[in-house]
Structures are given as structure tokens and as C-alpha cells.
């Protein structure tokens, strides 16, 4: 009888495609909007993920997220180094500078100043597109991120040392290019040494944004964080903690989750409405046929199985079309939009959640229809 159920479903092409479209559209909207939301949230943490080599981020106690920089004094670096369990600790400057371009325009830049001696936090070899990270030790040298280069210089081929910027009346020579995770603010990113970075910004009393630290191998990073907190009064977080602290800030303090949540909810409700209504109409139109099947000895349980199978089929196809469409959107988006970092992240959790929502949609649609079939008297076929 499963075969009969499927033939009934696919027999009316218009309704069949209508239900699949409803489910597919809902899945597409939910998956695509969730992916953009996750992409945006992930972009807020790009520097946390891109700064590699350290276990711990040490910062002022009042810092709420990665862009909420409250500078420390130079002495604070030595206080952190004095905490038992800290293997090493280095400076990191993170801030924004205004670059003057060759055409006279100005552009905000994100500046990451790395410890002069160790270059801790620099992009690894896999992320270097042009140049050598050791070139940062040259006078006025900076690395720029790929998106930043495209944004400022379009399709010009990269030649080390040819392009220069002017920041705070200081020359910045672009000696290398690296890949960086897309950022929330979309400003071009410059990597340079710490001493160089403080030249690129107007003079400030305190310039140490964060201290990057490594825990001793025999002491858990969480324990080192606790010791730093107790001994220095600073906030010390592991990469993962800082990542989620930043995400939580954006979730709680901005309207982003609500706006995306509304769109995702709309997708869900539109899917419920279209799929539910079309499935219901499909069942109503086939009520006599269901009645005939009942008369011919098909029990309610079997009819429920037939309707659930129909719902499952449209659910699976609609889900496939929806998440496939969302993935295709992300794929095309990343390749077409070259000048701006994409905010699209499609983790497996979105597949699961979208799948769960689709299950709810088709189950609701099936339940509404099923009720009519179950209460249907087989004698209706004689009327």
C-alpha cells in the first residue's frame, strides 16, 4: 500500500509540487537565514580565531567582547608573566587606525600589533598568500588581508613593497598578504609589529590591548586563568571562553538575533501554512478515495502510515531542496562577492535544526489531514 500512497501523492503534480515547494521554501529560508546569522556571529570572533599560538587572553576586567578594548599599561605585562603557571606572555595591540590612500581618501583599518620578538599571533604559513612573515621586521612593514587588498586595490596584482599607506603620518609598506577570517566590521586588516602599530595610531598613554599568554604544560589553562585573576585582578580567558563571551555579548546586546529569529520563524510559519494547507487540500480531494480504501479493508493504522509516508517523502525532498539551495547560496555568495568578507557559516547543527523544523512542519500538515481521514466513515463512499 506504500506504493499506492506514493502514487496518490505524485499523481496530482500541482499539489505535489506545491507541498514540496512549501517545505523546500521553509527549509531554504530557515537554513539560509540561520547560516547568515551564524556567519555574522562567527565574524565577530575572527581575531580570536586568527590569533594563533597562545592559550590565554588576558585583559582588563571590564572588557565585554573582543572589540571592547580597555588598554593595559606596559607594567601589566610583567605582572602577568609573574603568575605561576604562565609559561610566557607577550603583548598584542588591537585597534583601529585611519589610513590615507594614494588617491587622498581615508579608510579605517584594523591594526594587529604583534610582539616584536616572537610575532606570536601572526598568521601561520598556511594563511600566507604572499611574502614571508619575517618581513614584518623590516621598517614600516605591514601585511594586509586578502579581502582588504581587493577592497583597496581591486584586481591589481600583488607586488611586495609596491603599495604603501599612510597611517598617523607614518608610512606603511605592504610587504605581504595573508588570509584572514571575515570580520564583523569588514575593515581591512593590517598585521605589523607592536612597536610599529603604536606608531600608526595617535599617541595614547596606554596601548597594550591584550596580553597573550601560554600556560605551562603541567597546569591546566583554566587554573592559570584563575591564578591570573586572583593575583593581578585581570580577566583571563581561554580562546574558547573568549569566543563565547564575545558571541554572548552580541546575542544579548544587539538586535541581530531577534531580527534573524523573526525571519527564521517566518520561514517556519510560512512553511507550515503552505505545506499544511496544500497537504490538507490534497487529502480533502482524495477523501472519497480514502473512504473507498477504508471500505476495501484498509484500516486506520495503515492509512496513518500511508499519510505519514506521503508527509515523509515531501519532507525529505523539500528538506533536500531547501538545505541544498541554502548551501548553493553560500557557495555562490563566497565566490561572487570578492570585495567583502562573506557572513555565511553552515555548520551541521543548522542541518539538524532545519531538519527538525521540517519534521515538525510535515508532521503538523499530516496530522491536520490525518484527522479528517481517521474520522471519515467508510460509508461516505455510498453517499
Amino acid at each position, binding site marked *: *500500500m506504500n*506504493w*499506492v500512497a506514493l*502514487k*496518490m501523492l*505524485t*499523481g*496530482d503534480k500541482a499539489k505535489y509540487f506545491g507541498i514540496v515547494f512549501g517545505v523546500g521554501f521553509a527549509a531554504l529560508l530557515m537554513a539560509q537565514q540561520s547560516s547568515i546569522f551564524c556567519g555574522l556571529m562567527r565574524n565577530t570572533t575572527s581575531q580570536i580565531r586568527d590569533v594563533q599560538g597562545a592559550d590565554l587572553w588576558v585583559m582588563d576586567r571590564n572588557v565585554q567582547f573582543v572589540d571592547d578594548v580597555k588598554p593595559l599599561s606596559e607594567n601589566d605585562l610583567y605582572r602577568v608573566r609573574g603568575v605561576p603557571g604562565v609559561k610566557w606572555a607577550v603583548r598584542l595591540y588591537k585597534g583601529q587606525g585611519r589610513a590615507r590612500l594614494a588617491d587622498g581618501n581615508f579608510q579605517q583599518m584594523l591594526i594587529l600589533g604583534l610582539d616584536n620578538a616572537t610575532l606570536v599571533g601572526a598568521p601561520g604559513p598556511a594563511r600566507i598568500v604572499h611574502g614571508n612573515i619575517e618581513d614584518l621586521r623590516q621598517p614600516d612593514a605591514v601585511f594586509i588581508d586578502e579581502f582588504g587588498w581587493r577592497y583597496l586595490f581591486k584586481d591589481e596584482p600583488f607586488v611586495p613593497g609596491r603599495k604603501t599607506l599612510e597611517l598617523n603620518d607614518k608610512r606603511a609598506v605592504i610587504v605581504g598578504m595573508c588570509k584572514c577570517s571575515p570580520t564583523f566590521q569588514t575593515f581591512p586588516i593590517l598585521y605589523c609589529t607592536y612597536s610599529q602599530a603604536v606608531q600608526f595610531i595617535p599617541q595614547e598613554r596606554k596601548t597594550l590591548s591584550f596580553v597573550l599568554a601560554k600556560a605551562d604544560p603541567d597546569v591546566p589553562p583554566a587554573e592559570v586563568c584563575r591564578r591570573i585573576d586572583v593575583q593581578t585582578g585581570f580577566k583571563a580567558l581561554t580562546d574558547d571562553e573568549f569566543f563565547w563571551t564575545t558571541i554572548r555579548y552580541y546575542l544579548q546586546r544587539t538586535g541581530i538575533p531577534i531580527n534573524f529569529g523573526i525571519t527564521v520563524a517566518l520561514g517556519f510559519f510560512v512553511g507550515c501554512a503552505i505545506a499544511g494547507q496544500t497537504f490538507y487540500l490534497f487529502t480533502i480531494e482524495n477523501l*472519497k*478515495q480514502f*473512504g*473507498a*480504501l*477504508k*471500505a*476495501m*479493508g*484498509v*484500516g486506520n493504522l495503515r492509512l496513518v502510515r500511508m499519510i505519514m509516508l506521503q508527509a515523509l517523502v515531501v519532507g525529505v525532498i523539500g528538506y533536500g531542496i531547501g538545505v541544498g539551495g541554502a548551501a548553493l547560496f553560500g557557495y555562490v555568495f563566497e565566490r561572487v562577492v570578492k570585495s567583502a568578507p562573506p557572513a555565511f557559516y553552515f555548520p551541521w547543527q543548522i542541518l539538524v535544526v532545519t531538519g527538525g523544523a521540517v519534521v515538525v512542519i510535515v508532521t503538523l500538515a499530516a496530522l491536520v489531514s490525518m484527522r479528517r481521514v481517521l474520522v471519515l*466513515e*467508510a*460509508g461516505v*463512499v*455510498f*453517499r
Partner: protein
Amino acid sequence: MPAVTFSDPALRSPHPRLGSAVSLTGVAKEYGTGEAKVTALRSVDLDLPYGELVLLVGPSGCGKTTLISIVAGLLDASEGEVEVLGQNLTRMGGGRKVRFRGENIGFVFQQYNLLPSLTAAENASVPLLVAGWDRKKAVAKAGELLTAVGLGDRLKSFPNQLSGGQQQRVAIARALVHDPRLLVCDEPTAALDAASGRTVMTLIRQVAVEADRAVIVVTHDSRVYDFGDRIVFMSDGRIEKVEARQPARDVAPS
């Protein structure tokens, strides 16, 4: 016609010669309650033998449809005893009754009720699929029966590609494909012109009536009275009279 194997032998009727195919004793049926109560059947007693085609006739609202619904196990009687093919339906549970129907009763409906997305052969095979047959075997057997009713060249046609008479012939094949012991036909000629109606009745007469099967046909159409071995006249929920006839057997299917 080859016999069909059923899943539950207990549900098969006993040997047909042992008693009536249908035996109703004091059957009444009321719909609704209080002031909205409608009495559709009033103490109906009826015995229908095997091997005959019985016509159930009467004006609209006289209780014909209610009566066949009760006989077919689609509706429960409010009072009385209903015995069909040796099984007491009054005391039979819902699930068992569904299986009993599927295995013992064939239906022909006024509006055919064919599934529009299935071909003629697939439609006719549905009762076998309900009984758990393999699809290919079921469709092949349905094809044999469709050939027997003159639709051998329309096996792969969909209902919307068939005339009303042809669709009713598919419905007859569907009703008989699982070799039921009782065939219930509700106004099988009502949606057809006179010629097609006669063809359908001839077909039912020739293909359905067998020594171990009872056939009940509800009809308004006085032109088909000739086909019945017996005519049960109903009025206002009661059986007025039962008349034995010499049936016509002279019209071949077109």
C-alpha cells in the same frame, strides 16, 4: 477464477451452502439523538441466499444505503442481529471487521471511486494489495480480470482516459479481483447512459454471480430490474415486499 489466499482463515465465511449469505434479524438504525433523531431502518428482517443477484430498490431516503452499509460492515446497527457470510458482525470488533471486509466483500460504487493516479490494472489490483499481495502479481491478476470484462486493451489507461462505462467495468474488476463472497453495488448504473448501464448490469450478471457468492445491487433504475433474481422493495425504513424474478441474461459486454 482462481481462489485468493487470505491472511486470516478464521475470517473466511464457512461453506456457502450451509446458510444464507446475509441474514438480518430485527435490524434498526437511528441517526442522531433527541429531537434530531432520524430512524433510517425499522426492524428489518432479511435473508439473502448465495448464487443470486438481489436488487434493493426504493425511493430516496427509504434506507437502502443504510441497509447495505450495515450489511457491508461499514455501519453498525442500532438494534438487531447482522450475520454476513456466517459471521456475526454485531459482535465483531472494529479491526476484525475491517479485515473481514477486505477479505470477503467487494464494492462497486456509483462514482467508481477509482484512484486517478493509478492505471486501470493498478486500480483493479488494489484489494489484492490490501491483502498483502506482491504488486507485480496483483497487477497481473487484475489484468486477467480486466481482460475478462473486455478491457484487455486498456490496462494501462488512467481513469480520465476511460468512458464512464469503462471506468465502472474497472470498478467491477476491482470488486471481484480478490474473489469475494459478497459483492455490494451501490447504484452502479446511475452515472451511465442506458446502454452502458445495461452493459454493466449484464457484466455483473455474467461475471459476478456465482454459486458461492451473493450480489446485492442498490438501484433506482427500474430498467435494470430484469437483471435481478430477487427484488427487495423498501419504503420508509422497512422492507415492503420481496419479489422473485426470472433474470435477463442476453446482453453481452461491449
